[in-house]
């Protein structure tokens, strides 16, 4: 299935990745090549086959809700790109 530039731009917007023109061109070609490989699946009859989510069938694993220490503020903020006091600093989310 061929993917065109407009589709690549749409996917990149969904994935929140800015692309250069060259990248858009290359991804259109490469994603088309990869999707061609997926065509083989059309030949496989999967009618009535349950999809697999977990290979060992573990389902809804529960544990007791026991209070415990969590990371302190310094550790939590150790890798913050931008910090103000004990907060992660972010760009404005709301318009003024």
């Amino acid at each position: 299935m061929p993917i065109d530039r407009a589709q690549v731009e749409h996917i990149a917007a969904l994935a929140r990745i800015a692309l250069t023109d060259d990248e858009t061109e290359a991804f259109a070609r490469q994603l088309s090549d990869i999707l061609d490989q997926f065509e083989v699946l059309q030949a496989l009859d999967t009618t009535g086959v349950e999809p697999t989510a977990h290979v060992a069938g573990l389902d809804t694993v529960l544990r007791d809700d026991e209070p415990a220490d969590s990371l302190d503020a310094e550790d939590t903020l150790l890798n913050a790109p931008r910090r103000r006091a004990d907060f992660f600093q972010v760009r404005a989310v709301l318009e003024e």
Partner: protein
Amino acid sequence: MSETPTDQLWQLSASEASRRLADRQISSVDLTESCLDRIAEVDDRISAYITVTADLARQQAADADRRIAAGEATPLTGLPMQIKDLLCTNGVATTCASRMLAEYVPVYDATAVSRLREQGAVLLGKGNMDEFGMGSSTENSAFFPTRNPWDTARVPGGSSGGSAAAVAAGAAPFALGTDTGGSIRQPASFCGVTGLKPTYGRVSRYGLVAYASSLDQVGPIARDAADCALILQAIAGHDPRDATSLPDPVPDYPAALTGDIKGLRLGVPSEYFAEGMDSGVRAAVTAAIEQLADLGAEIREVSLPTTEYALAGYYIIAPSECSANLARYDGVKYGYSYQDDGPGDVDMWEAMERTRQHGFGPEVKRRIMLGAFALSSGYYDAYYHKAQQVRTLIRQDFARVFEEVDALAAPVSPVTAFPIGDRTDDPVRMYLVDVYTLPVNMAGLPAMSIPCGFVRSNTDQGLPVGLQLIGPHLSEGRLLNIAHTYQQATAWHQQRPEI
């Protein structure tokens, strides 16, 4: 080997070093120093390490020697190791070979790492890899490619290429790798070392930076099966911090190495010997299976008919999970963040898009985009849902053959180590390198790669070939015993590259 000079201690296998440490024949400080010297000697040629933690290693080695002297040692106390840079190490940079995390320093250890540290293992450093585990050659590292110690013009495989190359070159007695579609087994095969991908959930994924969470698994890369048994023993088991880790009790893996496989029913899946396989690989794997028959295994040809759909299924599921997992890299809480505080400061969305543009390499972006597409409105049923059904059929294939046989023997990869740059321009050709390893991840099974021969190449030494052993869920002990029995009778695993 009992006369090993102090500066040659790096040559010892993990098991042998463990015995000598316990007997006080050698010290961890000397062993660690020898490994650090070996890294200094070879790593400028193979680039297996992203970070070498020499000072930390010396300190941990001294601690280990004190612990041994106090009679409080475990089999791993004082053993040096390399950890793939996809596993979090408290206070030590964990880059995932990505610009996105080039400066990232975790404040906690992955569970597999903390279990090794509690046992007293010594961290030599962090292993190079394909960015976030995405690749088959370690050429997708954002920093530098790792080179194969058998021929430095060739790739070591991937994504755990730095780990396999380090073990092969003696720059670490053992390493922890991770395997999502073959990332332990295929580099182990290309580098002539032994690798084990455990059952999904056998080893905790806590602190393993997520790529495809339903497929990822941590495991050892070492010189032989006995070493892998020792390491698996330390890292296996339930972890409340990983809800997908299995509650099953952990058996005694070293005790499973009886060296006896008489009566073992060993299946050979015909689909794993398809067209396009290197003739040298076919010959070496076929000879290894005959050897296993001589050792008492009963060989049966079996069929796994869904195999031909596994590659497509995998390259839908893994990228889909990747696109969800890697959505966390938004430049806010940690990692690279696009900064432009000039008058044209960008808004929140643009900053995020540019963070991801500059922080991720081409293969990571390709997989995120592929996954975002497969999960997007209008395509979900045709791709993702279909791939999850393929996964069920693959599991059923394996379940059916494991009613007739105890384990499977097959090649790890249809090829041996290829030249650096040979496949980087063609993603599909690169993906095909893992065609015989990724069905195992789709079914969550344990599997090993063990050295089983060499093919001729342009160098005198030739290139290693790996035999893959695959078993039913939680059959690690059985696989380790088959590998051990084979290694008792053969010397392929003892061959070392001249570097």
